[in-house]
């Protein structure tokens, strides 16, 4: 996790959610299948070297799954986990083409990835326009780095398919000054803006959009650009801003009562306890839930309470999240229903759209979970993962 450094604000909530869920399982249920879960946390400050250091330091302790929460660390770990045989879960980030489990045996990125996100965003705009974006202008405003550049090929493919005009505008790290980008947007008046930002870039972008009077409902961020942190500094002006999501918002779920009772009141909360119910907290919790489910599956499948990384991997590869699973965990309808296979480490790419309500100060989903354009996305994934396989002498296979 990273609770320090430029992206601390996002890192804290996620880490709290992740840790609290496991604490809850330990406190309430006595662990997973009777085995206490331990969640060692390393502070990486979003820094690749520290990530690697952490990985090396902890892998010998029998780690079951890694959740690095930074795209760059993911890239370093992908080859390492193949050798060490430990699964890596990059939920909604990381290397998109890792969805192809034939090439990336140990890397999982269910339930959604960036290319799904790009496609989902376009789908949403399609919905708003009765299925046609012919002649519309869509601008991708993105972080000038690996993360921000991920959606470009997908969007280019989609632009061709749907006949909209795509422009991309890059913002360099850290993105405190975006005047020129927004003046450009003001001049060109795109119909829609898709936004791939992280950290301070988000807050400034939302603020600047408000400043130039851009209609907020046409401005949509990826899920990493859609937390309370991103919209609060802009105040009322942020009302109506949208962001993609792949899980529910708010604390209106039974699990939160349990967290209050077993974790917060017991004084075992990971952080200050002030993040509960925030978007990123929920995301951390959701990630923890998925990991816990896989672990439980592994125990079930092998009949052994003490599972190994290899068992964990196999369980992740056959993971199936049903409505019942979520119900049992106290989070009914929290995320999409999906399943993982060896060919598909990325789930079904179901995403949803959330919108910010500045008066109520809360995010809420305004759509169901809907699929991405699998045709476009999967073709791209295939191409990219095969290129990787060729470069690294991997024979794609499923056994």
């Amino acid at each position: 996790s990273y609770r320090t450094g430029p992206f601390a604000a996002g890192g804290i909530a996620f880490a709290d959610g992740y840790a609290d869920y496991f604490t809850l399982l330990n406190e309430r249920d006595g662990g997973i299948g009777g085995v206490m879960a331990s969640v060692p946390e390393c502070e990486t400050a979003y820094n690749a070297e520290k990530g690697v250091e952490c990985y090396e330091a902890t892998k010998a302790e029998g780690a079951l799954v890694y959740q690095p929460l930074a795209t760059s660390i993911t890239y370093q770990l992908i080859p390492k986990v193949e050798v060490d045989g430990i699964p890596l879960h990059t939920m909604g980030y990381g290397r998109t083409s890792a969805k192809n489990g034939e090439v990336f045996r140990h890397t999982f990125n269910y339930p959604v990835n960036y290319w799904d996100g790009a496609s989902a965003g376009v789908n949403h705009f399609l919905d708003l326009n009765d299925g046609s974006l012919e002649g519309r202008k869509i601008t991708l405003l993105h972080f000038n780095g690996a993360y921000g550049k991920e959606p470009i090929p997908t969007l280019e493919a989609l632009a061709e398919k749907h006949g909209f005009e795509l422009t991309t505008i890059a913002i360099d790290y850290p993105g405190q000054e975006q005047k020129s980008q927004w003046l450009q947007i003001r001049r060109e008046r795109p119909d829609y803006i898709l936004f791939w930002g992280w950290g301070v870039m988000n807050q400034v972008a939302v603020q600047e959009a408000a400043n130039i009077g851009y209609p907020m409902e046409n401005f949509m961020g990826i899920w990493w650009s859609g937390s309370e942190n991103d919209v609060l500094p802009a105040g009322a002006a942020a009302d109506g801003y949208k962001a993609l999501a792949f899980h529910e918002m708010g604390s209106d779920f039974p699990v939160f009562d349990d967290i209050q009772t077993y974790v917060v009141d017991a004084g075992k909360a990971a952080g200050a306890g002030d993040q509960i119910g925030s978007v990123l907290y929920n995301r951390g919790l959701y990630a923890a839930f998925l990991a816990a489910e896989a672990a439980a599956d592994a125990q079930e499948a092998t009949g052994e309470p003490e599972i190994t990384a290899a068992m964990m991997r196999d369980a992740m590869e056959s993971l199936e999240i049903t409505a019942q699973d979520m119900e049992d965990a106290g989070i009914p309808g929290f995320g999409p229903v999906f399943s993982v296979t060896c060919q598909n480490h990325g789930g079904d790419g179901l995403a949803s759209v959330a919108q910010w309500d500045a008066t109520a100060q809360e995010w809420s989903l305004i759509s169901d979970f809907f699929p991405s354009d699998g045709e476009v996305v999967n073709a791209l994934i295939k191409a990219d993962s095969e290129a990787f396989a060729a470069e690294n002498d991997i024979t794609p296979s499923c056994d």
Partner: protein
Amino acid sequence: MLYREAGDFKTSYPEDSQTFPIAFDRWRYWAVLAIAFLVIPFVINDYWASSLMVPFLIYAIAAIGLNILTGYCGQVSLGTGGFMAVGAYACYKLMTAFPDVNIVFHVLLAGGITAAVGAAFGLPSLRIKGFYLAVATLAAQFFLVWLFNKVAWFYNYSASGQINAPERFIFGTAVTGPSAPAWAQYLVCLVFVTFCAVLARNLTRGSLGRSWMAIRDMDIAAEIIGVNPLKAKLTAFAVSSFFIGISGALFFAVYLGAVEAGDSFGITKSFLVLFMVILGGLGSIFGSFAGAAFLVILPVFLKIIGVDVLGWPTEMVAHLQLVIVGALIMFFLIKEPHGLAQLWRLAKEKLRLWPFPY
């Protein structure tokens, strides 16, 4: 009693200008080398290699490089990160373009390419001095990182802009890629470090080194007594960048295996290496090692104390770590502005005089 110059007479000038004029020093360094080459490879494991030894050795190369520029030639540079990136990307392009050539040559060539780039960015140093130059080198830092981010050719058009080190072998053992054994990675870095240190030592004791130091101490006077400032500064930039390029190449290929320019070679890297040089001691090769060791080990050590021993929340430890590292840096600078190397020298000087106080 062992540590005396007296009785250690030199009868020729070459002997007098050798690296370690005092016999005891000489023996000690041979011992260190012997341990480094003959003992450590057999005991090292993944954790030690990848979180301590390999980064230490790689940073030591970068620190030697920067020390040549800043410590010997007096030109402060904040572009180290950018130059490491040049080394890394050059190495990547070479590795993928000529997969059959041994990686050692790729790394050396990457150093050479970086040297050329460094010399080009060194040109303004003829006019610009001191902190103005330091800030100007940031232009290199930001421009290079931007370039590697923008021009897809550098990362072979991969979707994410990351570069990944393919697996390469030396004498049949993998040294890059995920399955490279720890000892091999360590040994490769060690060989390069030794090579660089010897090179740096030779260059700094000869006429080139003296013209660098002359420029550092007083550039006008140096020019008037016959030092060509253009040549001195550009060679310093080139040599320094050569080392930094090698370290960037190793950093990418051997240590991390995958990098993204903005993330791994940002300005924090420049500062980190500069810290190593200053804490270690400007104008001292030993200091480069000391500084690198100090700054690689310290955070790991603090983390172990804070998280594993005291059991504090990681975030608090991380913040405390910042506080402690910051405070220690200030403390050291106050205690001994000339770095760990100077502390070492003073200790030796005392030892030489021992048992007399002065």
